[in-house]
């Protein structure tokens, strides 16, 4: 009973107002725009310099509900169920709760309108990816299309006398050497190769190190064509090939023993503390690693991280894992923005915010105050001044989340920010080459624009089946046959229907 009541209490607030068009008190104020988005630090003060600068630029007041990143998906679901949906909400368009709300008419369908606002369109392919079966509910927040990479302790690699890896076999050899050859030279058997954290969530293709390796071995990226039909990643021989490879590494102790409980927030720790030597993740992690290693030793930190791109499988064929190119969209609430005229007004403002000047404000800050432009790059200035530091924090930990055409990586229209130190500059230069190279072998996910209704309805119970089964297989709790049986259970429980729907929907979109 407690559970049901907990839910219904949370939903009670929505009871009165959720009447298909909104309550009386939710009338939007034409001069104020309310937002909800993620937060990575402390919430900026509305009286703060940056907040004020943005309001001045837009000629409108803004009110942002900042939600700590870790709680965001839950907060979104609770907000969707309440009467307090903001004008503009940063939201994952593929989440079931959003899909249902959008279908019921809680958000504006911008498919035919968004093209009128040049700054909001972005890349048409990515825009389609961020849609629900072709219906676009808002401008997407751009992210680099290819970010998967391998980070390796360069000093260890030198110590054990190995080269940068090109294939998964090379990776295995490095992991083995890192585990057995005492790469830190302390005479103790206290190191391992690959560092894998507990992968949170139960969505299968969640860009985990496991998914990266699946694709390396030639499995589809989430969904892919086999004999003219789309099948999920885990229903291919290559998936099992990849998992055998990973299981071997885990069984032989080349992976951190706590790989299924290590908190993702502590992912960098073993690398920096010299316990493990390989991380497979997004390439921006290199910057974090450099930051941490620099704290340890400002002299030699540049020699400690080597980042390489996607790896080829044993037979030399290479496949790279691209990402969706976006992270969340900015959806416009119909409850608050009621008329087409209001919508037009709001989209104009969002378009202005997505212009170069607006994106610079959100991603770089205030020119001449916390940064200056040199050779087309943003260089931080006055960082010792606590007030400027505040502006910088407000940018980095908060407002950057509202940027649609900006990202901390190398994508976007704002100024790229490059630290002055050589190792960072070197990494960034290499990253561009790497990405260009890997894009040639990128395996795209054809199912990105579509959402299967069955997956929405039954996802909650279906999703954990295969994610958990794979982890259990890797941990040695399930045999390969039992893993196959679990996959069959997924199909029987509704997966067959999902596959059918995905195939139909993708065919209908004419991709």
């Amino acid at each position: 009973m407690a559970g049901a009541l907990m839910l219904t209490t949370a939903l009670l607030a929505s009871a009165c107002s959720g009447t298909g068009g909104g309550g009386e008190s939710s009338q939007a104020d034409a001069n104020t725009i309310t937002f909800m988005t993620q937060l990575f630090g402390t919430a900026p003060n509305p009286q703060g310099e940056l907040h004020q600068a943005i309001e001045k630029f837009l000629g409108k007041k803004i009110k942002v509900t900042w939600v700590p990143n870790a709680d965001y998906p839950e907060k979104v679901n609770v907000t969707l169920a309440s009467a307090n949906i903001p004008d503009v909400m940063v939201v994952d368009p593929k989440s079931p709760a959003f899909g249902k709300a959008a279908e019921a008419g809680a958000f504006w369908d911008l498919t035919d309108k968004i093209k009128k606002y040049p700054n909001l369109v972005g890349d048409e392919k990515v825009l389609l990816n961020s849609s629900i079966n072709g219906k676009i509910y808002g401008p997407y927040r751009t992210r680099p299309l290819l970010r998967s990479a391998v980070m390796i302790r360069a000093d260890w690699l030198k110590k054990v006398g190995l080269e940068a890896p090109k294939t998964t076999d090379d990776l295995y050899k490095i992991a083995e050497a890192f585990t057995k050859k005492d790469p830190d030279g302390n005479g103790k058997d206290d190191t391992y190769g690959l560092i894998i954290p507990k992968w949170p969530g139960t969505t299968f293709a969640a860009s985990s190190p496991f998914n990266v390796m699946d694709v390396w071995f030639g499995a589809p990226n989430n969904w892919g064509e086999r004999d003219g039909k789309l099948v999920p990643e885990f229903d291919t021989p290559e998936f099992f090939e990849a998992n055998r490879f990973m299981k071997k590494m885990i069984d032989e102790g080349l992976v951190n023993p706590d790989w299924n409980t290590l908190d993702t927030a502590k992912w960098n720790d073993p690398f920096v503390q010299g316990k493990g030597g390989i991380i497979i993740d997004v390439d921006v992690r290199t910057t974090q690693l450099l930051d941490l290693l620099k704290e340890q030793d400002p002299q030699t930190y540049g020699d400690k991280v080597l980042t390489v791109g996607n790896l080829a499988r044993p037979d030399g064929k290479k496949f790279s894992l691209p990402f969706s190119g976006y992270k969340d969209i900015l959806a416009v609430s119909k409850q608050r923005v009621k008329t087409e005229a209001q919508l037009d007004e709001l989209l104009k403002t969002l378009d202005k915010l997505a212009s170069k000047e607006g994106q610079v404000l959100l991603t770089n800050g205030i020119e001449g105050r916390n940064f200056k432009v040199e050779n087309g790059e943003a260089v931080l200035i006055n960082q010792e001044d606590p007030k400027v530091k505040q502006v910088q924090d407000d940018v980095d930990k908060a407002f950057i989340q509202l940027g649609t055409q900006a990202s901390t990586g190398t994508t976007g229209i704002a100024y790229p920010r490059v630290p002055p130190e050589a190792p960072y500059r070197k990494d960034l230069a290499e990253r561009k080459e790497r990405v260009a190279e890997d894009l040639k072998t990128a395996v795209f996910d054809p199912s990105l624009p579509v959402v299967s209704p069955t997956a929405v309805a039954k996802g909650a119970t279906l999703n954990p089946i295969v994610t958990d089964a794979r982890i259990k297989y890797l941990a040695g709790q399930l045999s390969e046959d039992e893993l196959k049986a679990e996959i069959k259970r997924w199909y029987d429980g509704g997966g067959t229907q999902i596959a059918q729907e995905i195939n139909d929907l993708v065919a209908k979109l004419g991709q």
Partner: protein
Amino acid sequence: MATDLAPPPVKAAKVAGHKPDRARTLWRYRWLYLLLIPGLAYFIVFKYVPMRGLQIAFQDFVPFLGYNGSEWVGFKHFVDLFTGPDFGRLMYNTLYLAFLNVIFVFPAPIIVALMLNELRINILKRSVQSLIYIPHFLSWTIVASLTYILFSVDYGVLAGWVHEILGGQKIDYVAQPDWFRPIIILQTLWKTTGWTTIIYLAALAGVNHELYEAARMDGAGRWRQLWHVTLPAIRPTIVVMAILMSGNLLDMSFEQIWLMTNNLNRATADVFDTFVFYVGINQGAFSYATAVGLFKGVVGVLLIFGSNWLAKRLGQRGLF
């Protein structure tokens, strides 16, 4: 005030004539009724009004459309639940944990209270009592973090000791489905036993000392006294506690289990409470989650009535 609360003097005339009318009784006990209002309001606002929301278990609830706009689907979500892959596992895990709770957690405070009761050194008794109820004030988050620190395979202090002493393979206690239940029960014991002991100690304090003296006169030793005097004296307390517990039998401590769940032990760890949260708040399937919660609630109510009935059949006084 005090005089108002005192029962009214019985008037001779009343006994002879008609019944006192309702309004007059109400007026006479007005202060008592006034005292009732806040409590009543609490239950209405926080317990009964939200029950209106239970209707979404029978709808395909979309918050934007509200209670009135959402489509009615009858028992669809219940059918999905009972025929779905989760039901058996949830039921099994929940009942299994409930069973372990009955076996290990329920008697623990009784045993501890009896043991403390036998202690004759007062200062020792007091300090032990204080020490064991301190964990009650720690949050589950802290308890879970402690468990991870002590038992995780790479950094765990205790896990390391066990490995050193017993040898063999290093065991990742916090990720093994087999270890999930023992860990949960140990955590619960550690956190709750001391606190619940207080109730039994209070009951023990009320036992008439003459009974012990009489028993001693009859030649009863310590064990005999315990069996024939102490235990019967606190039996009503035990029965009431048992009935109260039976209603919450399916209420696992949500936070505790949620914090200890991971991909590897999910099959063992999922109980109704965590499932409702995961499906409802995390995945946004409000209607389905409510159906699950409602089912659990109904079972809880049945259990309360059942155990109450059983208590009466066994010759004890029930709750109602």
